[in-house]
């Protein structure tokens, strides 16, 4: 009984502290909005960054932070903000538009997609739902499938309810079969891949994790890349064209999953 009371107390404390942090982050966010309205973009961005540092991970915050960064000429932070916002709210049209707008103003052009139709469909689907939504739908279908299976087990053969349960089982089984692949890929991406956006104006990507190795290619502010390895103060990155090399970890920011 005592342990239950202690646990409840901890939960209450956690909730209240989280609530308080949420309110203080909201205050910074609202202050940022006022500064933005007054065209003080750098100051607004500072307040939004403060809310982010306080732990806020709200699509609204990322949307406004991206706007302030863009208006302040910080294209890298703008791309990072919009992309992070889209990771939380992939169907947010305003975020999507602003992200496209910011990307169009970066220096490095992304090569046109040469994907197969299947890959295009998959990318479209993957970009439409978050990993939580994929996993949630998967579990919901699994739950319904289990209920249908229990009905089959416990109902008498030939009854109407059993027939319905069998058909439901087939349909739900197919659904789970189809859905499990993108869910697995999305969860793999969540757990095992890291993407980043370059914040420095220009960086020379080198073939070794130091600042004296041969330059392989040059990238510019706002480019997105996959981070495949970290070694000391350097990260091994791969850009959409497939080129790879090392850059300092201080030059980019990881996209919030």
């Amino acid at each position: 009984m005592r342990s239950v009371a202690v646990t409840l107390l901890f939960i209450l404390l956690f909730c209240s502290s989280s609530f308080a942090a949420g309110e203080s982050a909201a205050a910074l966010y609202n202050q940022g909005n006022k500064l933005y309205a007054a065209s003080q973009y750098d100051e607004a961005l500072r307040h939004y960054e403060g809310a982010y540092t306080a732990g806020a991970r709200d699509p609204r915050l990322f949307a406004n932070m991206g706007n302030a960064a863009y208006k302040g000429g910080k294209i890298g932070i703008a791309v990072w903000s919009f992309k992070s916002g889209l990771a939380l709210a992939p169907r947010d049209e305003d975020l999507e538009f602003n992200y496209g707008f910011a990307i169009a103003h970066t220096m490095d052009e992304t090569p046109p997609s040469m994907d197969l139709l299947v890959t295009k469909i998959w990318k479209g689907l993957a970009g439409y739902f978050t990993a939580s939504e994929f996993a949630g739908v998967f579990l919901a279908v699994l739950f319904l499938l289990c209920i249908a299976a229990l009905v089959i087990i416990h109902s008498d053969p030939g009854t109407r309810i059993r027939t319905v349960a069998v058909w439901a089982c087939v349909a739900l089984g197919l659904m789970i079969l189809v859905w499990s692949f993108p869910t697995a890929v999305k969860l793999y991406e969540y757990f095992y891949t890291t993407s980043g956006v370059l914040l420095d104006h220009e960086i020379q990507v080198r073939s070794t994790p130091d600042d004296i190795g041969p330059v392989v290619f040059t990238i510019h502010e706002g480019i997105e890349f996959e981070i495949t390895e970290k070694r000391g103060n350097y990260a091994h990155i791969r850009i959409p064209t497939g080129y790879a090399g090392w850059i300092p970890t201080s030059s980019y920011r990881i996209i919030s999953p």
Partner: protein
Amino acid sequence: MRQWIIAIVLILFSACAAFAAGQVNITLSSENNAVEAGQPFNLNVQVDAGGLRSLPRPDLTLPGGIALIGTPLSSQSFQLINGRMSVALTYGFQVVGRKPGKYSIGPATVEVRGSKYSSNTVTVQILGSGQQSAPLPAAPAVPDAIPSQSGGGKKPLFIRAIIDPTETVVGGQVIASYYFYTRVSVGGLTMESIPDFPGFVVEELASPQNLDFQTVVMDGMQYKAALVKRVALFPVNSGKLTVGSLALRASVKKAPRRDQFFGMDPFDIDSFFSPGQQVSIASEPVIVNVRPLPNEGRPSGFAGAVGSFQLGVALDQNAVTVNTPVTLKVVVEGKGNVRQISSPIVPLDNGISKYSESSNEEINAGFKEVLGKKTFEIILVPQQPGNLKVGPITLPYFDPWAGKYVVASVDPLTLAVSGQAVQSAKEPRVISKEAVMLAGQDLRYIRPDAQKLRMNGSPWFVHSLSWIFALLGPLAVIISAIHKWRAARLASDMTALRRLRASAAIKNAKKRLALAAKSIQADDAGFTTILSESLMEYIADKSDRNAAGLIESDIRKILSDLGAGQRESEDMQAVLDECSGVRFGGKSLSREQRHELLSHAENAVIGIEQSVKKRAGK
């Protein structure tokens, strides 16, 4: 068999007819009309004869200054056309010119059944050292001269990797060529493993689908050789880097034994060769020593370009108004790894801002090196009026052939800008194609104030508890299915059901006796009824009977059948008799007597269980 005889008769008949016709043609040809002195070349003598199974070797008259090297190689082919068989014999003579000059070679002669046949003559020019042979028509698939220096170890077939150079600097071009050499007949070649080049950027130069064989002499032996693969390698790290080996699987044909020859189908040309033996061959890996680029003389702005390059620049407009984007095109052309060239250095006057930069490459992977050009398009936006300077544009690079740093440079360009200066440098930038389409638009406006923001927290699926919860459903299905399956199995197996009921009898009896103990406070009839029913239920479970059908007089026999001892059976009977006496005989019991009766009942059940088990154990 009959068909065979007819076929042989037909062949003999045709052969006789052809021989009778006396058709023997002899032709001499040279692979090259002009070759350098000391460079071996081939002369082919082809003898066509109808109706002959074999032909003698032709003689070739060589002038002074032309010498025969090696043993001539021969090939023979048979054809049956319109019932007439013809034999074609080709002899390959490898010769070499020692002195420059024009030589008439031939004729070749052959003697067939007493008649001598002569060929034409050919004229070949032997060139002195430094002289170039007449340009050949463009034939990109024809490789250069195949190396013939010693190295094969007189093996019948092998692969050789020629790396040029084996010492270079980081980013320098290294050409790796893989040649296949054979002096046996090879039926088919398949790539077994492609070479790997760790530490190199690779550019494919040649990978011919059909091998173009040339004849070379190595260690006094004549080989047929062809280029299999050629790549340009650009090392990205210094140190000793390995150029991997290439492996081929060759099907080596063997000449048929004499006793096998006559058993063959004369119409099946493939049967003239025995099935090939599969042989795997691989080249040796080669180490390339890669030195770091020198620090001495390294120009500022050097970004790793290695090769030999030229610069070309142009502006798409030379006169514009303020804030109008202009495109500066910088073309870097030359040999080396063009893909790795970073953008050239473009100094700009204060009134010009540099925005977007894009580049594209055109690589011409020639047969011996990588040539190409990389075009940079830089968007410049002038923000002040006047004659603004763009440049001088420079590209520092390291020339590995000269062994020094070079700065390619072009003179500055002038951009005439009219109009009024732009105040802010933070105007929306119009730089790329997408951005031009978005011109006139702006970001969608910010979101309104919020009472509370969503805080940092891992998504629900990160917690293992959520997945454990998710597994509850499948677990319930599995347990349910097992339970159902077990129940169905029991229902169909009466013996198992009976055994189950008997094994559960003591457990149920304990429950019922505990119920009787609770009713010890009730009246005598109530207590004894529950007690006697508990005991009867126990006996019914044990003997797999219906409790309602049990008669007290049969109890002793039933218990005896179950294997209970006589004393335990009597104890049980005594308890049941006592209960009947109270229920139907009007006998009354004190509280202590009820406890004693309950204790007797429990002891009787335990006693029966023990005696039944003991008997079953025996």
